[in-house]
């Protein structure tokens, strides 16, 4: 370790909230550094269903959250239009939903200033014919879909333009307290192993479900209740509009069209460790069963993958356990956010955590957090993030589905090099990302470009993208590193397919496995030792595996 780097504010966590905070503080004239242990948006921000809430989801149970959502919804449409597809949303009453909930829904929306229209069911079914014809009532609300990675990139770009710095793949490993303050924070570069010592005037933890782990380094106890939510991705938009069940929030009650796919969310399972969770077949089955109530033909549609995110749930005073929810946590916990000033109660004056909340309100969360930090540092500048449009928002129109195709056509159509056919990622789009972000993984490329997110789940684009990377970086990149890039991405894509490996997607998985093992010989690279001269006993499955069952 060499010099100590002095900054005004160190922000820990490169999700939407952290990105929002670094933008907000940078615009108020503070010199900030944001560190993220992996790539931007690899935690909860990049692992949600893609919904920009209208607030409709919360009008009945959590009016304050609903009011926040609609206010931020309107702001984000103005400041981040390129990150939003204005799908609109429905709340629909299926025969499985309580009638009285629908009776009170419109009035509750009005009370929370969430725009709402009840529409005849015939009109709903005309617009979205795949929906359950047994639906009894339908309400239209201004839900939309929100692209998290683009949103984070735009916030980060604005922070940079205002003199702050962001570092992905930098993990906080230690904090040193002197008296009532965090004096220094040690950050390791996960790629080079270099440790840097940061001396910040203030520290903000925007680490979401990981906030408890970060706080502990400063000697502060912060009890998070990470809540795992599992989602399923279908390879088609069976709806062009967000569809919610008109009932109290529950598992599997929302479908969000996102780019060329649709995402069914979510489950709610409280977990201990935000870094260690799996997806259960029971969760997948539950989602399918509930989703079928919205879309009766759902089981005939092709699933692409399953994934899970971890909600940063926090509750200061947990309620007593009930019969429904023995842990006393889960859906009962507010989705609202809390800014925790660790000064008075915890004795660390220059440390603030932001916990709870949702992507839709990331900007408000950032503003409230920044206000607390500025008060501590004696900064009187006002927040400007609600008024100033983010960088790279085009002509101010929202994103539309034909966007990629239009870009592709502009680049020469059939003669433009398509690296990923499913998501129309061209060679120039890939090169552009690599120019800016190299060194990076293909998973980072995926978040930046959607490479590998279509039906073949990377089967056809992975080796092309690895080829492009290898040729660009041939002088600096040993072939072992290219092997890793290839194998890691194929493994990452496979991970999400594994829980839903049936029907067409199992067939696709088999095709890709056949190509990579049979034609491309990936086993020779995976072994790291060629394929020949394997000891027989270790390599060969026993005859018992072949016994007639």
């Amino acid at each position: 370790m060499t010099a100590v780097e002095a900054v005004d504010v160190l922000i820990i966590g490169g999700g939407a909230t952290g990105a929002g905070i670094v933008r907000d503080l940078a615009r108020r004239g503070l010199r900030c550094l944001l560190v993220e242990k992996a790539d931007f948006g690899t935690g909860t921000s990049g692992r949600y269903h893609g919904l920009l809430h209208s607030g409709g989801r919360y009008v009945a149970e959590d009016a304050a959250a609903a009011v926040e959502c609609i206010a931020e919804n309107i702001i984000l449409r103005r400041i981040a239009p390129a990150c939003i597809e204005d799908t609109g949303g429905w709340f629909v009453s299926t025969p499985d939903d309580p009638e009285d909930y629908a009776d009170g829904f419109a009035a509750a929306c009005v009370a929370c200033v969430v725009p709402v229209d009840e529409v005849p069911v015939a009109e709903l079914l005309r617009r979205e014919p795949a929906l359950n014809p047994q639906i009894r009532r339908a309400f239209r609300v201004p839900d939309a879909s929100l692209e998290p990675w683009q949103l984070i990139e735009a916030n980060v770009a604005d922070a940079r333009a205002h003199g702050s710095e962001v570092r992905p793949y930098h993990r906080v490993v230690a904090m040193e307290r002197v008296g009532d303050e965090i004096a220094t924070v040690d950050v390791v570069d996960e790629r080079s192993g270099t440790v840097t010592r940061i001396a910040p005037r203030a520290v903000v933890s925007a680490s979401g479900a990981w906030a408890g782990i970060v706080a502990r380094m400063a000697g502060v106890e912060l009890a998070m209740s990470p809540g795992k939510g599992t989602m399923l991705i279908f390879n088609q938009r069976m709806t062009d509009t967000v569809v919610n069940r008109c009932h109290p929030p529950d598992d599997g009650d929302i479908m969000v069209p996102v780019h060329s796919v649709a995402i069914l969310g979510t489950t709610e399972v409280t977990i201990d460790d935000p870094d260690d969770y799996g997806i259960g077949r029971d969760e997948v089955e539950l989602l399918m069963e509930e989703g079928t109530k919205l879309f009766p033909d759902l089981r005939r549609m092709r699933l692409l993958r399953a994934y899970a995110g971890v909600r940063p749930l926090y509750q200061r005073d947990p309620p007593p356990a009930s019969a429904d929810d023995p842990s006393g946590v889960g859906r009962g916990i507010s989705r609202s956010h809390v800014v925790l000033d660790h000064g008075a109660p915890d004795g660390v004056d220059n440390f603030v955590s932001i916990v709870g909340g949702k992507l839709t309100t990331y900007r408000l969360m950032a503003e409230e957090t920044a206000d607390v930090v500025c008060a501590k540092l004696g900064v009187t500048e006002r927040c400007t993030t609600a008024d100033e449009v983010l960088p790279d928002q085009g002509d101010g129109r929202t994103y539309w589905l034909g966007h990629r195709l239009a870009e592709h056509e502009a680049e020469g159509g059939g003669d433009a090099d398509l690296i990923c056919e499913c998501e129309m990622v061209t060679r120039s789009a890939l090169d552009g990302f690599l120019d800016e972000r190299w060194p990076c993984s293909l998973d980072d490329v995926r978040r930046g470009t959607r490479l590998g997110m279509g039906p073949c789940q990377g089967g056809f684009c992975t080796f092309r993208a690895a080829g492009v990377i290898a040729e660009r970086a041939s002088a600096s990149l040993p072939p072992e590193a290219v092997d890793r890039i290839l194998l890691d991405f194929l493994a990452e894509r496979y991970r999400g397919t594994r829980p839903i490996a049936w029907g067409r997607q199992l067939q696709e998985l088999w095709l890709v496995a056949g190509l990579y093992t049979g034609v491309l010989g990936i086993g020779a690279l995976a072994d790291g030792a060629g394929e020949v001269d394997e000891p027989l006993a270790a390599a060969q499955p026993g005859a018992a595996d072949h016994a007639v069952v």
Partner: protein
Amino acid sequence: MPSSDVVVVGAGLAGMTAAIALADAGARVDVVARGHAATHWMSGGLDVAAPRGSVSSANGLARLASYPGHPYAFLHRDVRPAIDWLRAILATEGLTFAGDLDQPLRTVPTSIGATRRASLLPTAQAGALEPWKPDERLVVCGIAGFKDFWPGAIAASLERPWVWGGTTDAGDRRSPAAVEALVVELPGIAGRRNLTALHLARVFDDPAWRVEAFGVIAAALRRRGPGPGRIALPAVLGLADHGAAFDDAVRALPLIPFEVPLISPSVPGLRLFEALRAGLRRRGGRISVGEEVVRVETAGRRVTAVVAAAAARDRVFRTSGVVLATGGIAGGGLIGRADGTLVEPLLGLPVENPGAGEWLAPDPFDPAGHRLEAAGIRTDAALHPVDGRGRVAFANVAIAGSLLAGQRYLTERCGDGVAVASGRRAAAIFALEGARPPTERVKAGAGA
């Protein structure tokens, strides 16, 4: 009166082999298939048996034959004559192969700069099968604008001897002395982007163009200096006129050329399919690709008709026998269900599935493979499907190819050997049993 003696469902290697053998024996045969099969995405070589640790295909075959429940347990004696027979038929159609089951399996380079083991390859790929002499280099030659073959990346990877399997027991290296990359701009397509293998293959079918193209490559090689070696090219050297195109390459290039198979659509696989189809038609067989068989009609334990969804209406093939060669999971012959079970959708045959209800292995390329790989239809030695108690489910149905239970075509590299041996045996069984049943049974079936 049946319109076919035998209907073959599926146009992959197994189905086509069965159909050719049946037509060869004088049967009226129809191949009906939903679409093209594994031929169109595999390497175009014939993988007979290359489980880990085997030194030759013959050695691998003997090992797999010792596994109870493996198709080779009852098919292994058929493999060698069936492969020889098929090679002769393909050669007549202009597609020749090199290598055999007894020579050592050798590591040949792939288009991601890895290697795979092979002993029986089309002539155009066979240049990779010869052992490398100590002073031989390899030039990996790509075509500018072609996105499925990255010579720089391939060459960098292949420079590592361990990728080729290190050295032999005798201490000889399995790899070339040096590997270098070359990219050429070919006439008429320079500056083009998004070229596909099929597009390039069709360009190479033009004799005048390819002479010019090989001239460009030869000039680039000469600029690299003299010395013995070989040149690896993407497998795009012609489709309809491939034999002549490859001969032109051999004549024009100063190094020994060989093709490296690519991600699908596989041009070598297309050539294989075209040769099989020509062999079938030469023998009077008929083939309809793009007509999915949607149901069958049965009478007792016999299938009497196969019904395919054609363009405007269902097409009914009355038949005395059926070869079911619809493939495994990849081909759609087995369909996975959400509960982890597999079904055979056409006849509803019982599926033997050692991995039923389990998830796949956590590692996509687990060297031990996925248990589900071995799933399939259990048969008797005559390839008739049997139920869990060993009773024949359909007496005039034979199963061929990757639908057969007990094989692991990914980890054992045995799919082509199983396909050819079982396809030919299915045909022989029908000839032996007499595919035509007594007339009265056909009548009974016609009313079903």
